[in-house]
Structure formats: structure tokens, C-alpha cells
């Protein structure tokens, strides 16, 4: 099995409520970047949350399997799953302003998990943190490690979070809209940084975004999600050349073009929405979830 991460028929619903993820299957090969695209509310982030075990308590997994490096996660005890995730995967969160603990210095926020969870010595963890901070081009590393989050800019904080995600040399990183909260000039740098880091470390990356432009720059494969259902799964080149699903085609058409801002901003047509809704309903009836 070549896929490092393999999600099979994952179904998540609100307890006694609507279905959030409808039998989602996707694979991320080792060292590859897989994009997860969809509009707000499509359930992109929920896939990452289910994987990392941070699903809100009001939600439950009703079916499916998650294979990470040849081990099925959902059949393990919560404590085992948590340790396994902590040791092999990492998250680059969406909002760098809220993802660092405001009452702790930067240094320990990177090194503590290496010591606590992975059993490194404090000196090794410290050296590793410095190495990674240097790699993400943080200046004055000693000063930054002694700083509190509020003393640093958003771009700096996102670099720190990226360094922290790569620190334990995970095999899989989930990036949950890592550039959405940053302003456009910083977005580009951060995106380039993530891509370079991913290349250098050979990490599999699950990249969650609503931005097809970003996907085209960074991903090898992608899944398009609508209403919690994967409507298309494709390799990058094929997707941008010949999108198969009408919803994918509409999404591509809706991507604004810098050269033609007025004409290119096309909403997804109503008949396409209706058709996808119909498809989702059909799936629900067949799966008996409605």
C-alpha cells in the first residue's frame, strides 16, 4: 500500500443531527501534497479534525476507517490514537494569532512536546527548535524563543507554527487554510515556505483550502468536496486541464482572474448547485442516512 494516509468511507454526523461528512474516501501518498478544496461549510476542516481527534464533542463518527502508516486509527483507544497522532502527524493551524498560547514563551511552545511526548532531552529539543526556526528564516532566534506571542507579527507567528509542525519530523502534516488569516503579501511567502519545507523533509501534506489558486501552486493531487461529499478526485494537471464534475468546472470558472476582474468573477450556476444537491441526496438515500 503506497498511500501514507488513507481515509475510507468516513461518515461523520452531528449527534442526532445532519450528516457532515458523507462516506469520504481519500488518499495521500508519502511525500505528496494533497489538496482538499471546497466552499465554506463543505466539511474540509472536519476531515482534518476527525483525523487529528479534535472533532467537537457534538459530532460523532458513524462509519469509516482512517489508516495512517499502515495502522487503523479509529479502532484504537482514544489515548493510543492521541499518542500515535502526536508522534506521526502535525497541524499547521489557520490563524497564527490565536494558535500560540499567549501566556507561554515561544521556545517552550516548540520544544515541550518534543520532550514530553517524544522523550527527547531538553538540549536536543532546544537545538532542534533553533535549527527549524533558522530554516523558516526567523531572525534573532534566541530573542524570539524568549518572546511571548503578542510581541511578534502574524507572519512571524505563522513561521513559528510551521517550524513547530515540522520539528518532530512528522510523516504527515495537515495544513488547515494556513494562509487565509494572513495578508496577501505574506501569503505568498508562507506558501512558498510550506512548499519548500515539505520538499526538503519529504512530508506528506494534506492541504485544506478554498483557494484553487493556492492549490495549483502547491498540490500534486486534490479532492473537491461539496456538502461533505467528495465529488471529484484527481491529479493536479488533469484537474486543471479537464475537470470532470460539473461542480469542479463551475469552481474553476469562478476563480477570479487578475487580468479580467469583472468578467471572471462568476458565481457557481444554480443548476450546477441543484445537480450536486441532488447527487448528495441520492447518496444519502442509498446510504440510508436520510
Amino acid at each position, binding site marked *: 500500500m503506497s498511500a501514507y494516509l488513507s481515509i475510507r468511507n468516513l461518515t461523520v454526523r452531528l449527534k442526532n443531527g445532519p450528516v457532515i461528512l458523507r462516506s469520504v474516501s481519500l488518499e495521500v501518498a508519502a511525500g505528496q501534497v494533497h489538496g482538499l478544496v471546497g466552499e465554506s461549510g463543505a466539511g474540509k476542516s472536519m476531515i482534518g479534525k476527525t483525523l*487529528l*481527534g*479534535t472533532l467537537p*464533542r457534538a459530532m460523532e463518527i458513524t462509519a469509516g476507517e482512517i489508516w495512517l502508516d499502515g495502522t487503523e486509527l479509529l479502532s484504537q483507544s482514544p*489515548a493510543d490514537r*492521541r*499518542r500515535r*497522532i*502526536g*508522534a506521526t*502527524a*502535525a*497541524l499547521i*493551524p*489557520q*490563524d497564527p494569532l*490565536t*494558535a*500560540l*498560547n*499567549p*501566556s*507561554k514563551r515561544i521556545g517552550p511552545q516548540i520544544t515541550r*512536546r518534543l520532550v*514530553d*511526548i517524544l522523550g527527547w532531552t531538553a538540549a536536543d529539543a532546544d537545538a532542534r527548535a533553533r535549527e527549524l526556526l533558522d530554516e523558516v528564516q526567523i531572525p534573532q532566534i534566541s530573542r524570539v524563543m524568549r518572546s*511571548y506571542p*503578542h510581541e511578534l507579527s502574524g507572519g512571524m507567528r505563522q513561521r513559528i*507554527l510551521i517550524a513547530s509542525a515540522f520539528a518532530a519530523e512528522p510523516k504527515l502534516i495537515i495544513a488547515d487554510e494556513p494562509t487565509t488569516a494572513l495578508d496577501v503579501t505574506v501569503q505568498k511567502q508562507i506558501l512558498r515556505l510550506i512548499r519548500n519545507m515539505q520538499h526538503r523533509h519529504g512530508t506528506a501534506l494534506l492541504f485544506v483550502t478554498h483557494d484553487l489558486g493556492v492549490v495549483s501552486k502547491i498540490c500534486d493531487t486534490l479532492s473537491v468536496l461539496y456538502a461533505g461529499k467528495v465529488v471529484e478526485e484527481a491529479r493536479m494537471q488533469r484537474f486543471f486541464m479537464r475537470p470532470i464534475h460539473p461542480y469542479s468546472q463551475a469552481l474553476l470558472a469562478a476563480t477570479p482572474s487578475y487580468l479580467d476582474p469583472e468578467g471572471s468573477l462568476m458565481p457557481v450556476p444554480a443548476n450546477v448547485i441543484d445537480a450536486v444537491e441532488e447527487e448528495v441526496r441520492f447518496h444519502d438515500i442509498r446510504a440510508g442516512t436520510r
Partner: protein
Amino acid sequence: MTALRNILIRLSTTAVTLFGVAVIVFVVIRVVPGNPIAMMLPPGATDDDIARLEALYGFDKSIFQQFLIWGAGVLQGDFGTSISLRQPVADLVLGRLPATLELSIVALVMAMLLGGALALMGTLYRDTTTEAAVDVTAGMALSIPDFLWGLVLILLFGVLWPIFSISGRVSPSLDFDFATNFYLFEALLRLRFDVVGHLLSHSFMPALALAIPLAAIIAQLLKQSLKETMHLDYVTLARTKGYSEQHVITREALPNAVLPTLTLIGVQFTFLIGGTVIIERLFSYEGLGNMAIDAVINRDLPLIQGIVILFALLFTVINLLVDMLYVVLNPRLRHA
């Protein structure tokens, strides 16, 4: 530099506050009915006797003149002489202060331990019946005032199961010479844990009675802010790093969630000290509050003034300490 300036401003407002308190107390206790001189003399004393005694204590002068005389004394550290106890007020009050301070601190520690434990339990088992049980417990604890808790505790642990001592600060049987009036701290520092145990068996019930309502407030507020903090991104990120729920709550969420609770504890601690007045009476505990009630009953004006000024000073000092603690604990305030 600004820190020093802030402290100076705080100290000067404290001085104004204390002056205001002094004026109000001085006037009010002289305006309300009840004459200290009448309390001292046997029935049938002549007007002459009364006049002589009034002159002796200066009550024949106007309130303004009396205030000036008293104020001049206070500025030199002389708070006058107690009418009923015939000793310098400063000695009396400072002699009793340690007892009340120790009781309040034991109560505060109890309240923080109890309230903190309840809040952590409610957060760990949030959205379950355990959390509902925590809410109900806190609600009940809060809806009964401290002196009623005192009575309940006396009935439970003084009468039904006589485990703890119900009266006084020490038993007369205790064979130990204290060098200071800080009995508990002194026993701790001298590592006499048998004496510490004895003292705690005396202060346990009054302290618990004071602690229960505060513990309930701490439990409610801390649990609320912990639950809000648990949704924040850095807490989620800590979870994905492989940390247990207990670790995430105590190490990631608690240091941030505890800040509003600390401010509240600062305010509530002064209420708790106010509560010692009744509780000390209830448990015959030889502290300031008990002395205050005696002073009021005896119309011992100089003693009342001394005690009230000391309480006011205590409250402002506590508020100052809480503000300073807040800056230490919250790194975002350090550069402000």
C-alpha cells in the same frame, strides 16, 4: 519608571480613601444614639460625674475639635486608648490582626483548592452529569451565606460528629509558647506540625464556613472561562500534539483562564475578611472581628475607629497586591 509612578498614585489615593473612611466613621459613631460614658458609670451617677468623665475623654469638645486631636495622634501612631479595655488601641488592634489574617488566609486557600478542584472537574467532565452536579453544588454553596454555613458546620462536626474544635483559636491545654501572634505561621516555620494540626483543628470550621461561598464563586467563574478557553486554537493545537485532556486543561488552558478569576478573588477576599466579623463571633475566635463587635456593644469609640481604619487599610493593600500579581501572571500587561 511608570511602575513607580503608578505605585505613588495608588498610595496617594489610598491616603485619601483612608482619610474619608476616618471622617465617616468618626462622625457616624458620634451621631448615632448611645453614649460611651453612660455605659461606664453605674446607674445613679450624678451629672457632675458624667461631665468630669466626658472631659477626661474629650467628649465635651466639638466633633471637629475631637477629630483634630485624634487625627494628630494617629499621625504620630497613637490611636488613643480603648475605653472598655483601658489599653492603647494600636496595641490591641495589632495584637488581634494576626489571628484574623491567619483565619482569612486559611479560608482563602481552602476556597481556592475547593473551587479550583470543582472547576477542573467540571471542565474535564464537561457536558456530562458530573458538570451538572458541579453546577448544582456551586449553586447551593453560594445561596447559603457564610454564617449559616458556620451553624451547619457546628451542628455537623461539633455536635453530631465532634471531630473539630468549635470555639477559640487555641485550647488552653496547648503547651507551647508563641513568640508572635501569628500562631499558625510561627508553628509552620518552627516545624512544629503537631501545633499546626492543633491550630488547624480550631480554625478548620470557621475557615470552611468563610471558604464555601467563595469556593462556589471561584468554581463557577473558573469553569466558565476554562470552557471558553478550551475552544481556542492553541488548546486544539496542544491536543494534536498528543497531550492528554488533563494536561491540556491544566497546562494550556488554566494559566490563561485563571486571570479573570484572580481579579475576582481579590475583590471577594475583602468580602471574606468582612465575613470574619460574624464568623469569629460564632466560633468565639479571638480575632479583630470579635473585638469589633465587643467594641460596638461597649460604645468604645477609639477602638471602633482603630479597627475600621485597620480594615480599610487591609482592603486597599489587598487590592494593590492583586493588581501587582495580575501583572506578574499576565505577560501582555508587563510592557503596558
